[in-house]
Structure formats: C-alpha cells, structure tokens
C-alpha cells in the first residue's frame, strides 16, 4: 500500500512552511518514528516524524521550497 505524505499543519495559523531539509532520500527505508524531513515555520524548525514504515518511493519538493499545508510532498510504499 502506498501512502501520501502531506505537508503538516504545525499551528493553527500555518498556511505554508519551508522544507528545511530531507532526512531521507528517495529509495531509503523509513521506520515509523524516524525523522523524515524538517519544516521551518515562524518560530522554529520542526523535525517531522514518519507515521509509516516502508520505503520512501518519491519526493516532490526540495529543501528551500515553500509548500502549502496538506500538499503532497512524498510517497511512502508501506511495509
């Protein structure tokens, strides 16, 4: 099963966030709870944990991109 990874809404007012870094690359094995990527918002950088275990199949954005909340940023092929 494949699961879309969306841009999380880290606060009530958040409309967009900047993808600060990927901690995994396409093709990497990802375990639930591992940091998948980092998002920079007004106050801090949030290390976003993966909610799935599997293989990171595709990523659609690069570090530095500003992304709308809920936009699909990656796909994980779940175990």
């Amino acid at each position, binding site marked *: 099963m494949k699961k879309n990874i969306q841009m*999380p809404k*880290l*606060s*009530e*007012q958040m409309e967009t966030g*900047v993808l600060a870094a990927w901690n995994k690359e396409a093709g990497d094995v990802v375990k639930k*709870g591992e*940091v998948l990527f*980092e*998002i*920079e*918002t*007004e*106050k*801090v*950088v*949030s*290390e*976003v*944990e993966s*909610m799935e275990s599997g293989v990171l199949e595709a990523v659609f954005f690069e570090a530095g991109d500003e992304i709308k909340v809920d936009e699909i940023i990656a796909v994980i092929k779940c175990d």
Partner: protein
Amino acid sequence: MEKKPEWLKVSYNKEAVEEVTGLMAKLKLNTVCKEANCPNLGECYKKRTATFMILGSICTRHCRFCNVSSGVVETVDPKEPQHLAEAVKELDLKHVVITSVTRDDLEDGGAKHFADTINAVRVLNPGVSIEVLIPDLQGVEEHLDIVIAANPDVINHNVETVREFYPEVRPEADYDRSIAVLEYVKRKAPHIKTKTGIMVGLGETDEQVFKVMDDSLNVGCDIFTIGQYLQPSPKHIAVKAYVTPEKFAEYKKIGEAKGFHYIASSPLVRSSYRAEEALEGGKS
C-alpha cells in the same frame, strides 16, 4: 523567513499531537500550547502533557509578543473546571499547569474561576500538584486572595520582559504591579511556591536581566524561567537576537548564585515547560 539557529529544533509527531488535540476538543478545553503556538507542543503532547488555558481563548489585552487572540471575549464556561479535572485524570497528569487569558472585563478578573478549577482538579485527582500561571488580576489583593485561598502548590505570574520594554511589549501591564503580585502572594502564603519568568532576545542587556532577577528575589520568588522570545508572525514584535545556549547557561548559573531555588534557562524554556521538574527543584 529568517533561518533559525541550529538549537531551535523541535520534534513533531502527528499522531501524538492529534490524540491530545482530540481530547481537548472533546472536553471543550483550550491549551496555551495551541493558542500560543508553543514550539514545545510536539514534545509535550507526545508525553501526554499540556498547559490548560481557562476563561476562553480570547484575551482582553494586546501584548505584542503573544499569539493568543485579542478581541471580543467569550462567556465563561461553568463546566470548564470539571472538564479540566476530567482531562487531568484522562492524561494521568501528576502535575497540572493552568493558565488563562487576561479577563479585565470580569469583576474578579477570573479569580473565582481559577479557584473553582483548582478545587475541581483536586477533588477528582487527589495528590496531583497544581500550578497556576495567573494574569496580574490588576493587582487587586482581594482577587489574588481568592486564588491563594484555593491553595495551589505554585503561583506563577510572569514578568515577561525587563522593565524598560514594558511600554512596547506589554502596553497594558505594569512592571511594578507584576512584582507586587509576586510579593503579595509570598507574603500572604509563604508555603506556596512563587514563580516568574522572562523572554530574552528582545534586545535587553545582561544588567536589565539581572535586575529582573534581583527584583524577583527581593519579593521572595522561588523559581525563575528564561527562554528565547520567538516571533509568532510578522505582525508581532521582532526578535532582536537569538541568544545562545551558552548565554542561557550563564544566566542560570548567575541566577542560582543570586539565590533562586530553581532556574530553568535555555532557548526553548517556557514558563510551564517541564514545570514538574521546576517544582521539585524549587522545593530544595
């Protein structure tokens, strides 16, 4: 968006956040974690802890650092104390922190609602330690008496910033009044731990920070917190400096040498962050 220093990194676990958020919604409760867009929300919710915010989510004041909304306030929910007590039970908290918006529109500033909430928590959760982070209640002693009479373990009132920045940062507050609140609580109930805190990064000098420490110690304050101010949005007052972890460590060392029972000082410290540890430390 300005790049953040390396030390301003936090973790976010969607499931953990949604679990606590769901509980709060079910019980019609607010948390300052959410309303203030606290950077520690992810960590605290993952540990199933939160700081409750009573008396609604709309504040009557307009502090320029704060993300809590201002405007037309809500009716006070008489069921809130009971709901909050139920949430403490469901989260199995051993230490609860309760704060509020400032309600200058209410005759007692919300003091009785604070007391009702403390009492409700205690009835349903015997043995739980209770910390209240109160507004200044306009310095009215009889209103402070209502909170004191409910006998929480800790009464926190944040000074928030150095005296010199009040007109710009807390235009409707008064530095001396806030210090007087801490003084009054300690004088009336010496057994209750008093606590205050400031944000740094607004351009204050070390001497101004040390003066707040001295003023707080002079009124018997037990616990002091220092954290980095973070701008919630471009509309809020700007960050002047990202204070380094080394500087925070220096503040802690100096504050402890001055005589505080406990100081929490690091970039992501907020007044209720790991408050249970501060209470334990403050007992020594």
